């Protein structure tokens, strides 16, 4: 075995010990479970993932509330029942959300009557939101198709190309399933994150494919070298996104926290897919598939 140390003192995996079937089983099982979850949710609710306020309509306000018992004050101030009240760390600001039945003008005047400082109002009507949803799903589909075409054009061999595309597919699907499991709603930020996952995912897959397909040296040597680089790449991004998610959540910047969280899910899935699914598909292709 080549003596390449994985970064960050990660234990070295001896791929030669495992069969392709064993390696592929794990990511495929994860993908299957994810698809089952999404399918089940889709059948029961009519949407693959719980759409958030931007897609279903509703109002979200940031209110500056003085005095004790802020939650109590907020509940008393509005005739509509708030769907959620969330404090922003280190301030007297609360993010209060309402369903579609509340009118944003009425909410604003009620907040002002109660003496709250209205810091922001974000309101979407249901019909406007459903259009945004269609466009968001269309955007992801088109981006995915564009990526697939380019990957196939670049490698011109079926197995390495499909390995990249399947990995990317799984990288998008698994975070969606996780959102369902953890009860996270889809926002415009998470749609943007899903798009970015397509790009990030392809990055590490292409790196691995290139090392294996275009370099001298044994399969394992190339693969380990690609792993060394690729894992560092993914971990830097995961670190950046974890930190951004934590800070943005504390400050209540929903857009940044949902982008960060979904990217963390996607990048973690990408580690699994690249170094188990893609790796074993490549190995199969290199040692067996080529001769066919």
């Amino acid at each position, binding site marked *: 075995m080549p003596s390449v140390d994985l970064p*960050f003192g990660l234990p070295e995996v001896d791929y030669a010990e495992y069969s392709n079937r064993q390696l592929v089983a794990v990511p495929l099982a994860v993908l299957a479970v994810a698809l089952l979850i999404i399918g089940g949710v889709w059948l029961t609710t009519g949407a693959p993932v719980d759409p958030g306020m*931007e897609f279903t309509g509703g109002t979200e306000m940031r209110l500056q509330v003085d005095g004790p018992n802020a939650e109590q004050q907020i509940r008393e101030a509005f005739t509509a029942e708030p769907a959620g009240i969330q404090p922003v760390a280190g301030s007297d600001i609360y993010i209060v959300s309402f369903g579609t039945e509340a009118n944003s003008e009425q909410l604003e005047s009620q907040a002002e009557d109660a003496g709250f400082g209205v810091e922001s109002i974000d309101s979407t009507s249901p019909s406007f939101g459903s259009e945004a949803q269609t466009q968001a799903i269309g955007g992801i589909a088109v*981006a995915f198709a564009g990526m697939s075409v380019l990957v196939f054009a670049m490698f011109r061999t079926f197995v390495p190309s499909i390995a990249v595309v399947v990995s990317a597919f799984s990288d998008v699907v698994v975070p969606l399933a996780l959102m369902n499991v953890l009860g996270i709603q889809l926002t415009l930020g998470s749609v943007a994150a899903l798009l970015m996952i397509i790009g990030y995912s392809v990055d590490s897959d292409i790196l691995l494919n290139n090392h294996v397909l275009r370099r001298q040296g044994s399969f394992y040597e190339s693969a380990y070298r690609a792993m060394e680089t690729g894992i560092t790449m993914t971990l830097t991004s995961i670190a*950046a996104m974890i930190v951004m998610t934590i800070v943005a959540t504390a400050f209540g910047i929903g857009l940044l926290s949902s982008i960060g969280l979904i990217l963390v899910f996607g990048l973690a899935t990408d580690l699994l897919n690249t170094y188990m699914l893609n790796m074993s598909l490549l190995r199969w292709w290199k040692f067996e598939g080529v001769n066919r």
Partner: protein
Amino acid sequence: MADEGGTWASVKENWRVVLLVVIVLASVFALFSPTTAPSTNTPGSTANGTAADTGMTNLQYGLELSGGTRIQAPLVGVHATGVDVPEGTETATLRSEVAAGLENASAQDVAVRYPGEYGDTVQQTTVVEVRTENVTAAQLETALNEAGYEADDTYNRVSDITQQTAVTVLRQKVNEAGLSGGTVRVVGGDVIVVEVPNANQTAVRDLIESRGQVLIQAYHQNENGTYVRTTVMDSEDLRQVGNARQIEGGQGAEVGVVVRDDAAEDVQQRFVDTGLAQEGGTDRCDPENPNESAPCLFLVQDGQVVRSFGVDEGLARPMRNGEWADDPQYRLTTGNLSTAQEVAINLRAGALPTELDLDQNSMLYVDPSQSDRFKTDSLIAGIAAVLAVSGVVFARYRRVEVAGPMIVTALSEVVILMGAAAAIGYPIDLSVIAGFVAAIGTGVDDLIIIADEVMSEGEVTSQRVFQSRFRKAFWVIGAAAATTISRCRRWRCSRSASSAGSRSSPSSACSSGCW
């Protein structure tokens, strides 16, 4: 970026580093130079140091980071194109026939526009538009068929010309209201976006909901002999404001207006009562010194006399004997076409062709204090992310001379992006900040590939070996970047309709995420 010289010392002619330094310096210049500062100063906060710092740059901020109101809504209405209207059909007949077939519309809601040139747009076929809620394109098609007019196509939106007029009117309204920096644009084909910095929800709603303040007033003597102004009609009395056109075979230009049927009698009575429709008609008068030729008509906008008109005998006579109200058309005549166009716009500014569908909208209001907080908080989130990336890179390479330059290079990428944004005045929003953070992440990715390539096979002894490995590394980067760009280009096309954040500057296409 002088410390980069250490790492790349083995490269004799390191023009790449020089180029990077030059670009970074140019970006810093674009960011901070007062000579390139935008004319509209961004409202920077002085409440705390961080926000004040960002106020010193030339960066333009979007709504979330500068405060203000954005309302997005489509226009109310559906339309049919290529309507086959037989020669000699009265427009009024057509309108009432179509309205008869529609449960939720009256003749007033139906507009007919014949082929011709409207502003910059040439309309090839006859368009029938219904400008009221609760009418679908399918219902319009049925109504047209029932009335015996075949249409080529029907659409669940207003026609392009109506939309253009609405945008023009809204722009004018936003400008007239003195809301500086307000913009009106169309996204996704049919959604109007009105964005006004430093205005609250109510102000913007009132502005785009209100019918404007255009009045046509009579300047005349009352019973006591004092000169007063009496409003004879305003934009609410008008059913239709025509396009300005040159008078055929004559001098000057005119704008035709049609008074609403239910207001015509009253308008006519006011013309008579104020003496405008007196025997022999009246002349226009000098707005500076109107007493001499009063009574006359004033076109008044927000309390200001814009123009003066007279009423000639040909119009005054039917008004006196009550015939005018049966066909209440009025022509505002002016000296030249451009004035007539101005008058037409002035009148229409109060009479949007159709309303914004505020039941189907998306509204965002951000208070200036909140936007300052967003600025500070997102800056902290960004810096925290940079520190995290730096930590991981140092942990991986454990050598300052490798990791240090990588982080500096990745940061310089963000400086270049910000410089480009400042130079072209691209507004920074929360989504763009997320893009900057992503830029640091992907920028470091490329550097990790290069570093690993260069260090992989022991020491790099000669420049040629270095360059060949460097090139090999670039194949990887190029391939990954190409997929990113293709993703961006497609997403850009498809996202034009979406309200999902904003794009990053063009120069950031490959590395920063592209939205």
